[in-house]
């Protein structure tokens, strides 16, 4: 029951947070946290390192942005379309990527994401270098005006909780158990009669659709869909968030996203803006060399050692 209290506490914090902290920052944090959680479903629970998750974040963002700009649909439908679009792209990319393993999987996903990047750079509807600007947030279900940051915040929070719950359910379902079995010992999972590639594929689709959901939401928050979201840098960032927070843990990506987004916010304002890449790179190196379990993983180890 301890864990339920923790969830309750977090929800209360999330509900009062916008009156204490700038809501746009919180929304950014929630979007990236959802993105990182979606990514972690693949890396942490199936052991697949995708280096191209920006493609799904960006696809969700571009579809939602385009629909909100060009048609009169309501935001929840725009987000749904972005999520489905990213999931479909994930179905195609995933089918190709699961043919290879390990390091090759990372390279294939990176190359496929670069394909998406050049597509959005050249496609006539995506605004090229400028991206899609001035995307309207619209009114939720045609009733609640989202141009108010507080209303938008609670909408984003609801989306995040839904995504987080879905990942939680997936991980703790029989399906999730099989994913973990594949991560731990793939040949054994094969010998037990599981079609490993199909399981990986479905996990890839869920992960990419949720990454798309994060991207769609992010587009509404910032009223912008741009090439930054499909750039390989973004793919690297989500890897860093998950690694730093702790891969394979439920809360790790959340913590990692919080730390990374906060660092970016701190650095981007002042003269230190140029140092962002260097700082990110150094964190990468330190994480890999010194604490591969991440912040949450190390914390759990510490708790186990001292309080068990």
């Amino acid at each position, binding site marked *: 029951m301890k864990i339920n209290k923790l969830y309750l506490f977090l929800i209360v914090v999330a509900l009062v947070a916008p009156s204490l902290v700038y809501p746009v920052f919180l929304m950014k944090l929630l979007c990236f946290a959802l993105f990182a959680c979606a990514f972690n479903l693949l890396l942490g629970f199936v052991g697949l390192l995708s280096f191209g998750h920006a493609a799904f974040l960006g696809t969700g963002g571009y579809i939602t942005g385009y629909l909100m700009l060009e048609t009169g649909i309501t935001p929840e439908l725009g987000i749904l379309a972005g999520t489905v679009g990213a999931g479909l792209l994930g179905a195609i990319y995933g089918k190709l990527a699961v043919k290879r393993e390990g390091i090759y999987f990372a390279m294939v996903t990176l190359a496929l994401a670069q394909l998406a990047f050049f597509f959005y750079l050249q496609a006539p509807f995506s605004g090229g270098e400028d991206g899609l600007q001035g995307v309207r947030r619209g009114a939720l279900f045609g009733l609640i005006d989202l141009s108010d940051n507080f209303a938008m915040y609670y909408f984003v929070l609801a989306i995040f909780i839904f995504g987080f719950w879905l990942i939680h359910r997936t991980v703790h379902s029989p399906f999730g158990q099989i994913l973990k079995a594949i991560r731990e010992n793939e040949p054994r999972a094969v010998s037990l009669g599981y079609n490993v590639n199909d399981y990986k594929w479905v996990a890839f689709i869920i992960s990419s659709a949720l990454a798309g959901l994060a991207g769609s939401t992010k587009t509404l928050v910032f009223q912008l869909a741009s090439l930054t979201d499909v750039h390989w840098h973004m793919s690297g960032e989500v890897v860093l968030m998950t690694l730093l927070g702790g891969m394979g843990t439920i809360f790790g990506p959340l913590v990692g996203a919080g730390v990374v987004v906060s660092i970016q916010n701190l650095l981007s304002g002042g003269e230190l803006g140029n140092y*962002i890449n*260097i700082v990110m790179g150094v964190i990468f*190196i330190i994480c890999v060399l010194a604490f591969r379990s991440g912040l949450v993983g190390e914390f759990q180890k510490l708790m186990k050692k001292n309080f068990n």
Partner: protein
Amino acid sequence: MATIFGINLFALSGQLLVGLINGSFYALLSLGLAIIFGLLKIINFAQGAMYMLGAFFAWMALNYMGINYWWALILVPIAIGLLAILMERFLVRPIANEDHLYSLLLTFGIALVLQGAFTHIYGSSGLPYQIPDELKGGTKLPFMYLPNYRAWIIVSSLVVCFSTWWVIEKTKLGAYLRAGTENPQLMQGFGINVPLITTLTFGFGVALAGFAGVLAAPVYSVSPDMGSNILIVVFAIVVIGGMGSIGGAILTGLMMGVVEGLTKFFYPEASTTVIFLFMVIVLLVKPAGLFGKEA
């Protein structure tokens, strides 16, 4: 103007030349990746950053120390190789027994630091590097004009690639290397210093990227993000070729450069994406890659 079937031969051969030049760089970089992968089983994400570093070192050597192109062509790869040896010894080796994905992430971090540092110091616009006097000008062929420096890129990278291939396939040192790829424990049992060979191999594989960087300095502008753009293409090439063979890495690199050049001529809109599309086709038809050995 020379035309056949309505195709402008002058323009076509021009694009083919550009393709061959890009292919030379692809071949050098993927060869380096393949050599390192063979022994260490890791992918060096910093290979692109090292290529960028090679170009910058050549520029710095010329502008700060007055070292000319020809000396840079020899000294810069050595410097990059030494740097890589330090990197292998102090960063890569400590995690050699962990999952190989960690070394990919480690080298990615190194690439970010290098790229970030050079962007910070030199800005993201490129720096110019003069073609050496000996290679200025060009030769007029029947249906194209061949600039001497471009011919030099193709010739010198082919020489380096094929001598590397020859050393690995035909000499005793190469035999050690191939044996190490098959079974490092057994080779160590025969009294061969495997950690030393591993370090030197890493150094040499990365030095190839440094060499490519010096070659590239006069044709592309020397800029911090020159490495990351080419590296992702090289990754796709590695997937296309498969890392089973050294010769395969070289051939695939050259071939993809030519494919890219042809696409630039016939359908320029797809020239940035054609290699990735080619990778998709290879994944569908022969997932292990054209020269891949594994199932």
